[in-house]
């Protein structure tokens, strides 16, 4: 088999699985799960084979077919395979595989087991489509497919009103961003006449002013798409609500795939952003990181804490891209994929054991009941908090270093967020896993089955070593060719301290401060001491800075008013005047003309003679 067909197989296997499950194996739970899981695991294995055979820089970078030719628009259907997409492919299929396997254990009691796996496979397919797309159009299509399948997954328990609402919210918020994305794509196409990433990049390299006056606007519009998918402020509201989906879905959406798509897209299209656009992107990322971290401090739902943590980390990544360091963003994305998937699956394991209890103040003392979950969760927490030498430290340090070089305010925000991250994560660990049992459910809790713990173990390993296996060098080598990067394990371990000592040390200091604060406040707390100490601010944090309420009062009101106007317009001007009006006029004329059709031959003959007389008068008579 030709090696270039491998990516196609990787891409279409999940789709095939989704189709087969939907059409044929709805009733057979085991077959459905096997199909779905094997599709992504095979995809993972094939990816590894492909990379083994080709290394991260294959000679043939693109495989594409001509799909549509509409005038000047040439739409390809192709795959772009370079270090960026191959690494992302590894992450998506790898983390995805772990989540798929874990889902088997987590979901096995659910009635719609097969539907779940079908949606999961569809989601995987869409995500792979984004990763491998070689042009904007194809990426946009997959982008929308991700939106649809995320809608299906978040609203999986659609009989629950909150889940259905959350699914709608996610979908609509995403659409909002996608609209900007589409406009951005149109601007890029109008200015450069191509949608292919390679051609665009080459064209912009030849003539940096090719985008003209619309360059910043176009870049920001494209960024809008990322803003929706990666849940950046002010479109971040959907992500915490998306926790209504099953926990594996949360893990999949939050860790490896959907939200990462935005950052991935930013890195993929990094070449079109002007410095001004990057500035905006960096600040939006920074604000998102800070806001989300603050909100996370006062959440009590274990999944919501993780959701806001994801938001905050995504803010980090976007900020990294905005600081002209997309390789750092991608690096953080990769490591984050490992430890956030780990944390979510750990949380899922806890929830599973606690019989769907999600409030951390009703847990406590779980470390003895579920040691594997506890230890792996601890690894994830440390990695997220940025403990040397776990993966999170290196990726976060790369971002902080970039901030240090470019913008002091953003650096301070970054360090602050790092401290907050440590604080809320250890708050979670102290409250949920240590201390005494706070409810009798804890007494019945027990370790999850192997099908759930083994993905945790594997992900824990990656969370530990993910920072030093050369991911950053890979992205750096691709996005900034010729740059200097450390080689070898020892060099990797100490590289941050040599490269940007201030950033590395302040990152560690932030960890220390956060851990200390969490320990003093929560190590032996019976209830949350913070509301008593900071009062109003705590309430604001708990209520997510009232963004939902703000949107409720503004966007939704405006939307309703617009809808009312449009409804009036549709009902009276279009429905009544245009549609029924023309129909009425037609029938009126018909009624009048009906009298002429008498069926009497002689009336017709008379009319004919009259007509002949008129014609003759004009031909002869005048």
């Amino acid at each position, binding site marked *: 088999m030709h090696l270039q067909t491998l990516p196609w197989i990787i891409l279409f296997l999940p789709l095939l699985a989704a189709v087969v499950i939907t059409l044929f194996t709805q009733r057979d739970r085991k077959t459905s799960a096997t199909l779905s899981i094997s599709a992504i695991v095979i995809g993972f294995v094939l990816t590894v084979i492909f990379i083994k055979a080709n290394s991260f820089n294959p000679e043939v970078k693109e495989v594409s077919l001509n799909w549509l030719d509409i005038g000047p628009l040439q739409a390809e259907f192709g795959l772009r395979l370079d270090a960026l997409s191959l690494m992302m492919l590894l992450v998506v299929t790898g983390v995805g595989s772990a989540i798929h396997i874990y889902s088997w254990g987590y979901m096995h009691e659910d009635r719609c087991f097969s539907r779940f796996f079908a949606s999961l496979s569809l989601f995987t397919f869409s995500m792979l489509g984004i990763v491998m797309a070689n042009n904007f159009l194809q990426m946009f299509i997959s982008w929308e497919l991700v939106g649809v399948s995320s809608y299906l997954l978040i609203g999986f328990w659609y009989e629950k009103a909150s889940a259905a609402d959350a699914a709608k919210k996610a979908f609509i918020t995403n659409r909002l961003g996608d609209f900007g994305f589409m406009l951005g794509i149109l601007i890029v196409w109008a200015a450069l006449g191509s949608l292919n990433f390679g051609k665009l990049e080459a064209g912009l390299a030849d003539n940096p002013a090719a985008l003209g006056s619309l360059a910043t606007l176009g870049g920001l519009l494209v960024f809008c798409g990322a803003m929706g998918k990666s849940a950046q402020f002010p479109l971040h509201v959907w992500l915490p609500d998306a926790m209504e989906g099953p926990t594996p879905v949360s893990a999949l959406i939050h860790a490896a795939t959907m939200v990462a798509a935005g950052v991935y897209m930013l890195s993929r299209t990094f070449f079109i952003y002007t410095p001004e656009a990057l500035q905006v992107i960096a600040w939006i990322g920074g604000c998102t990181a800070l806001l989300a971290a603050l909100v996370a401090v006062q959440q009590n739902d274990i999944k919501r804490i993780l959701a806001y943590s994801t938001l905050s980390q995504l803010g980090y990544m976007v900020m990294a891209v905005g600081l002209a360091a997309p390789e750092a963003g991608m690096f953080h994305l990769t490591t984050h994929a490992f430890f956030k998937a780990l944390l979510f699956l750990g949380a899922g394991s806890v929830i599973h054991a606690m019989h769907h209890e999600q409030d951390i103040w009703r847990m406590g003392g779980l470390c003895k009941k579920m040691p594997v979950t506890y230890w792996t969760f601890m690894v994830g927490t440390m990695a997220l908090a940025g403990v040397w030498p776990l993966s999170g430290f290196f990726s976060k340090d790369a971002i902080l270093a970039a901030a240090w070089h470019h913008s002091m305010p953003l650096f301070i925000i970054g360090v602050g967020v790092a401290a907050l991250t440590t604080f809320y994560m250890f708050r979670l660990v102290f409250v949920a896993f240590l201390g005494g049992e706070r409810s009798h459910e804890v007494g019945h809790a027990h370790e999850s089955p192997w099908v759930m713990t083994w993905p945790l173990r594997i992900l824990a390993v990656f969370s530990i070593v993910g920072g030093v296996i050369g991911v950053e060098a890979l992205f750096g080598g691709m996005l900034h060719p010729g740059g200097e990067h450390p080689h070898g394990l020892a060099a990797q371990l100490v590289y941050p301290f040599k490269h940007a000592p201030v950033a590395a040390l302040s990152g560690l200091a932030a960890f220390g401060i956060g851990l200390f604060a969490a320990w003093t406040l929560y190590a032996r707390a019976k209830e949350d001491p913070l509301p008593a100490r900071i009062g109003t601010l705590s309430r604001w944090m708990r209520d997510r800075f009232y963004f939902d309420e703000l949107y409720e009062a503004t966007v939704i009101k405006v939307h309703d008013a617009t809808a009312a106007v449009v409804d009036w317009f549709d009902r009276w001007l279009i429905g009544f005047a245009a549609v029924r009006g023309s129909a009425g006029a037609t029938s009126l004329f018909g009624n009048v003309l009906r009298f002429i059709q008498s069926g009497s031959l002689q009336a017709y003959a008379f009319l004919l*003679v*009259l007509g002949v*007389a008129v014609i003759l008068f004009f031909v*002869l008579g005048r």
Partner: protein
Amino acid sequence: MENAQAYLFYVFAALAVICAIMVVANPFSRSPVTSAMFLVLTMGCLAGLFTLLHAFFLAAVQILVYAGAVMVLFLFVIMLLDLKEEQRRQVKSLSLVAGLVSVGAILAIFVRSLIATKPGEGALANVEGSTSKLGKLLFTQYLLPFEIVSVLLLVAMVGVVLLSKKDLK
């Protein structure tokens, strides 16, 4: 001689017009049979006019075909159909007026254009419509239409046989 021909023309023309009026609007009878009989007379007068125009062959054909065959067919059909009830119906005055207006308009246009163009000016009446000349023309220049017309007659015959079948579906 000339004068005799002119007198004959006026006699035939007047007769033809009067008979035609009787065909269309007979004040004494509404029966189709009277109409048919007056139509035969009109045909006869037209045959006379043909003769005055030296179209002897056509005059003969006119008598043979129209007065002989066609009108006989008409009379047969009238006899076949029982038409007593039909006679009582009145001609509607509205349709009569409409007909008169439209037909009058057409007639007026004809006559006006005739007066305006005067097609007969300088024309000499010198063509003899003898049988041999007509026959020669029919079998040379107009051979193809002639044959086609024969086929047409055949088709009409078949059609009539088919139409006259009892259970026409």
